């Protein structure tokens, strides 16, 4: 017998133990506690939105056994992310994996701390799903989501965090919100207490472009403006019914979904370039992105 299996086994246990230093217990619901990940050394914790039923006096169990109180900073149900602030300091921040480093077939450990000690399950990365909104990067895995694992990290074999696990995003499927989505959502929640999504104030439907414009732009369709709201960013930018939006900044717009997606990642309050087709001609407009309520 060689010692490869033992080495592998020891390495996984060590990864669980080491990354466990960045995993906390989150008591914010009546039944079983859930798990959270240390976001910053000065006491910010991320966890799953669906495990946070109370907003004040949330008890956070730290890896050393100490319990501190936390307050909800904000939550985003669409990614099942919540951010909690505590007065703890000197917490251990985990290493984060870039989304590009994670591949289908990679081994992954799901870690949780519903009790005092860290717990682990093993699986592989099954698939990725990037939804219409650019900031939704999910990894699907076959890891077992043991009770209380929601809000815990999905980690690779070297202990880098691939994302945050949730059992509530899709029934019967283990999904992890990947690092880029998590950074975007948590950043926005910390800064604004909510997720800011861009707003133009137009009603659109997909429409084919005139042949000449289609050839010039290299795309066959765009978002035909069928209504413009009063005092909206679109009206202020000089957009009219009948215009066809074909790009927002670097994002190609071919239908409503791609426009929503581009607006989801657009910086609220800042000027953006809107490329349109009007009477067969391509024009550029400058629009200040509003905030969708």
């Amino acid at each position: 017998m060689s010692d490869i299996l033992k080495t592998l086994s020891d390495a996984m246990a060590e990864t669980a133990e080491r990354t466990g230093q960045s995993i906390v217990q989150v008591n914010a619901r009546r039944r079983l506690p859930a798990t959270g990940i240390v976001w910053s050394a000065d006491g910010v914790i991320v966890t799953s939105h669906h495990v946070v039923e109370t907003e004040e006096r949330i008890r956070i169990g730290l890896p050393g056994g100490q319990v501190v109180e936390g307050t909800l900073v904000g939550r985003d149900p669409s990614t099942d992310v919540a951010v909690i602030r505590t007065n703890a300091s000197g917490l251990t921040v985990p290493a984060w994996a870039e989304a590009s480093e994670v591949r289908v077939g990679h081994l992954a450990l799901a870690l949780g701390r519903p009790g005092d000690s860290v717990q682990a399950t093993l699986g592989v990365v099954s698939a990725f799903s990037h939804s219409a909104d650019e900031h939704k990067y999910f990894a699907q895995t076959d890891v077992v989501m043991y009770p209380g694992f929601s809000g815990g990290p999905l980690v690779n074999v070297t202990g880098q965090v691939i994302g945050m696990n949730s059992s509530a995003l899709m029934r019967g499927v283990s999904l992890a919100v990947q690092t880029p989505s998590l950074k975007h959502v948590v950043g926005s929640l910390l800064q604004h207490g909510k997720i800011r999504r861009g707003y133009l104030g137009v009603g659109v439907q997909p429409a084919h472009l005139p042949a000449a414009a289609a050839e010039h732009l290299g795309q066959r369709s765009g978002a035909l403006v069928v209504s413009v709201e009063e005092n909206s960013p679109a009206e202020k930018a000089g957009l009219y019914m009948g215009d066809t939006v074909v790009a927002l900044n670097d994002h190609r717009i071919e239908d409503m979904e791609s426009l929503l997606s581009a607006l989801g990642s657009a910086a609220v309050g800042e000027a953006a370039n809107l490329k349109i087709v009007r009477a067969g001609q391509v024009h550029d407009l400058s629009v200040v992105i509003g905030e969708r309520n």
Partner: protein
Amino acid sequence: MNQEVLSLLASLNADMADAIDRVHRSLVHISNGRGAGAGTIWHPDGLIVTNAHVVHGRHDLKVSLPDGRRLPARLLAADPDRDLAALSVDATDLPTIEIGDSRQVRPGQWVMAVGHPWGIQGSVTSGVVIGSGDALPEMRPGRDWIALSLHMRPGHSGGPLVDSQARLIGINTMITGPDVGFAIPVQTVKLFLKEALGSRETIV
């Protein structure tokens, strides 16, 4: 893939198969007239451990040894609360399993469970330890368990749970779903045997 990686994977496969070979040498099949389960040879003079629910209330116990012999077994002790039982068969110089230490169990470590699910002799499932102790979410507090992320089935009951080096760390006992199993830690088995039978040397 380079040659080095392929040879690592081959070694990994060989390690697993070697470990299972060793487990199979001391794995027994227990039939109770109505159903069946698995057990492990603990002592060369015929001491076998299994779950109490495998042998509960039955007197026509038969044990099939790895060498093919099928012998009647005597129930030495059973503890339904801990779900452990000790049997004895009239045999000597039997191959035993190496006893491990369940206090050293770590979340994330590799484990293999062996038994006879659906009557398939010596079938193996592998996975990792989720956690251990007496405060696991799905279990009533006060009893020690090892929670496992693997595909255990009812026929694994009474069979050995071993670590990467084929050392016994638990007795496969129950499942709470298709992907989660529970084993009784081997420390609990040691305590049970000590209380039920006295020291090992007195058992003949």
